[in-house]
């Protein structure tokens, strides 16, 4: 009997915490972890809307499309972490640091 707004507010706060981490932390791996937090927040949002489908659309049957979308999102996030960490390993081998402030070779 929870109103859907509770889930959406939790998802928004989790997203904001993840965004704060991406903007603040220096270690690139922690930035990747905070991106994963943001993706989880979006997944919660998707599944919440999917689970309240008959409430929000009276007269329609239950629809699991939101859960399926979240499933694809989890798969894509896992692939992104793998590629992101591979890139970070390559950067570490070359510059001996993963400090996001020091990897500024493309800056003006």
């Amino acid at each position, binding site marked *: 009997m929870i109103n859907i707004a509770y889930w959406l507010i939790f998802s*928004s706060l989790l997203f904001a915490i993840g965004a*704060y981490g991406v903007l603040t932390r220096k270690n690139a791996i922690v930035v990747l972890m905070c991106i994963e937090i943001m993706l989880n927040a979006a997944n919660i949002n998707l599944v919440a809307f999917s689970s309240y489908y008959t409430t929000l659309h009276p007269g329609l049957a239950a629809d699991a499309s939101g859960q399926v979308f979240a499933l*694809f999102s989890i798969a894509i996030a896992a692939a992104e972490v793998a590629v992101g960490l591979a890139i970070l390993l390559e950067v570490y081998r070359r510059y001996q640091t993963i400090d996001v402030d020091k990897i500024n070779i493309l800056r003006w």
Partner: protein
Amino acid sequence: MTWELFVFLFLAASGLASALMVVRAREIVHSVIALATCFIAVACMFVMLSAEFLAIVQILVYVGAVVVVILFGIMLTRRGIMEGEKRTRSGVIRALAVLALALIFVGATMSIDWPEGEIDDTTNEDVGRTLFGDEDSSGYGLIVLLIGILLLVALLGGVFLAKEEEEG
């Protein structure tokens, strides 16, 4: 205060607290443990939302694979024992910007009159039917195949990028 609301508040508090610990922890391994806790809290919320298949996939993929890969990444990019300072110059403006973002989201959510109701009781058959279709609909099978190709390309690229350099 029903049991459902109590469980939701407990899970939400632990999810938000562990996410905050990811951002603020001094040691990076503490961040990883907090991240795993956040993922498990989110998986429990999926169970509350009657998405049990998704909860199992979340634990398998996120806690079981992503956290382990991140730990390996930390191991391979260590710079001495102490990883010293943790964040850049004072992030007051960034914190205020993120706070403004959160307030906009929460305000927009609370300004809508959401209808009350029960959570749908979706089963694994519903998820399978949505994915692969039945006589009435075609399902999302093509997207599953494309996700498979995406994972193949991503993992091949990851292996190639992380390869040691050959001699000559």
